[in-house]
């Protein structure tokens, strides 16, 4: 651990980023999905909530009965499937970003404080981390949603309050290795405040590590959102969520498997994109980290 990622290497790191196929493919795919989510109202051919019971369960374009107006068909209430998929990206990404914002802030703060101060503070925070790790996420989320009622806000809050453990563990370890560096001692000799040392001096040294954890956690959150929505405890109908779409298509799985295959593939692609990007980032920043 001679040196952490120093931005002195930034130009080179950028070039290495661009040469890494994982970063390129994952990043490109993720950017595409983000753009689709952002411009959903412009891209979606129909209102994702508009029902038309006369046009129920129309198949997508590669099947015989398909209608050109509904490229990917319609669901059991006659809602345009393509539009619902496009709007569903908003939920997935929005929940992902929201949860990471909450969990990242909690985890990074706890980890920094524990790693930097050590001693009994570290002991207390480590205990909290261990306690959190012993909670089964889905069960706790189910219980919380059952108490608070299913809604997007509840979902983001509950997941945000649960998923900070990895951030905390990683930043704690990084802070432990940084706190005895001489520049921290020098800053204390300069009379720099603790908050300044933690967030303005130590934190920027961990950006690569945190970025990797972040990408892994985003994928995790997106899958959890889908799982909870599938169980009817996440996003409430009629809001289009990929997990909810899979759940709604369940009844017709035998005759219209595309009802599940389409949102399933979308979910798969998004998680793949995030994971590829995270893996790529780890590969690019990894050797410099060691």
């Amino acid at each position, binding site marked *: 651990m*001679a*040196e*952490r*990622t*120093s*931005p*002195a*290497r930034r130009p080179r790191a950028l070039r290495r980023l661009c040469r890494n196929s994982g970063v390129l493919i994952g990043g490109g795919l993720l950017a595409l999905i983000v753009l689709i989510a952002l411009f959903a109202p412009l891209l979606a051919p129909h209102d994702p909530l508009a029902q038309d019971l006369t046009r129920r369960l129309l198949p997508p374009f590669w099947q015989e009965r398909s209608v050109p107006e509904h490229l990917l068909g319609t669901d059991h209430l006659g809602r345009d499937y393509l539009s619902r998929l496009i709007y569903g990206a908003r939920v997935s990404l929005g929940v992902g970003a929201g949860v990471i914002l909450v969990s990242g802030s909690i985890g990074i703060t706890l980890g920094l404080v524990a790693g930097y101060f050590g001693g009994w503070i570290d*002991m207390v925070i480590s205990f909290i981390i261990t306690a959190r790790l012993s909670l089964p996420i889905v069960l706790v989320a189910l219980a919380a949603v059952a108490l608070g009622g299913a809604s997007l806000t509840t979902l983001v809050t509950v997941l945000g309050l649960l998923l900070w453990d990895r951030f905390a563990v990683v930043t704690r370890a990084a802070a432990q290795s940084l706190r005895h*560096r*001489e*520049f921290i*001692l*020098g*800053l*204390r*000799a*300069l*009379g*720099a405040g603790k908050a300044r040392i933690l967030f303005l*001096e130590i934190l*920027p*040294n961990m*950006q690569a590590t945190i970025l990797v954890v972040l990408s892994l956690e985003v994928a995790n959150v997106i899958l959890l959102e889908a799982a909870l929505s599938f169980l009817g405890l996440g996003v409430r109908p009629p809001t289009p969520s990929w997990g909810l779409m899979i759940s709604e298509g369940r009844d017709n799985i035998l005759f219209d498997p595309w009802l599940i295959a389409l949102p399933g593939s979308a979910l798969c692609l998004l998680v793949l994109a995030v994971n590829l990007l995270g893996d790529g980032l780890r590969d690019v920043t990894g050797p410099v980290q060691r």
Partner: protein
Amino acid sequence: MTAVPMIRLAGVSKTYRLRRGLFGPSQELRAVHDLSLEVARGETLGLVGESGCGKSTAVSIMLGLLAPDAGRVEIAGQALDAMAERDRVRLIQPVFQNPNAALNPVKRIRSLIAQPLKLHGGSEIDREVARAMEMVGLPARLAQAYPGELSGGQRQRVALARALVLKPAVLICDEPTSALDVSVQAQIINLLLGLRRELGLTMVFVSHNLAVVEHLADRVAVMYLGEKVEEATTDALFRAPRHPYTQALLAATLPPDPGRGLPELRLGKAAADPFALRGGCLFAPRCPVVEPICRSQPQDLRRVAEGAVRCQRAG
């Protein structure tokens, strides 16, 4: 010493309590014990000793980063613990051993040097930074670089510029050259000599490189397991070391003639053990001239001609 000394440590002690696990037995580690030092204005004191002898703890105490368990620390006649942080920072600044670790790698050189000014409300920051960089011989074009792009010597210059930008009266150098190449060491030492003359700095120079200390220091204090075992003017110490530990330290410096082989140390095989029983003289387990009384009776610091020594045999 007629004037008020710039730095005065009187009977300073610091004990760490080490504990194995939450309820494990605790052990006491005496990092610094009854250390008294005085450094006059404009003087350079060399602080010498092996690893673990308490040098770094002494440095942290002088910088106000660590509160001593006992004893008084005065800087320019004021008690350090009563001094406002602001005044302390403007009075005393450190330069650390490893320039790779002493600079935050994600900050540009300019903002690193400007940081003390920003923290303590300096004005004309740009001009002050440029002045400090010129003072330590850093080309202005490096202001926008990151520490990773600089050589070890340049980084140490940045660390120096950063320490000097607030114009402190005292510089505490904790082995500022030990991480550098020999040729670069010479440059940094010459720079320090020049700056000391120019700015009238008072310096405490911690090192285990005796050649460097001989070159820089006016007086030398030798520490062993947290205690000062000898103090003398540099000339006297290097000409006629009194304490057997100082003698061994000097003998351990490699002779310039390779034909003479490695020096004979006569220190025995034991390493310094801070947890060892403290009946008598701390150095007794390794002392080549030990006598039975040394093992039972602690040695006191005695005044001798040019300084002080903690050994009954030394004349």
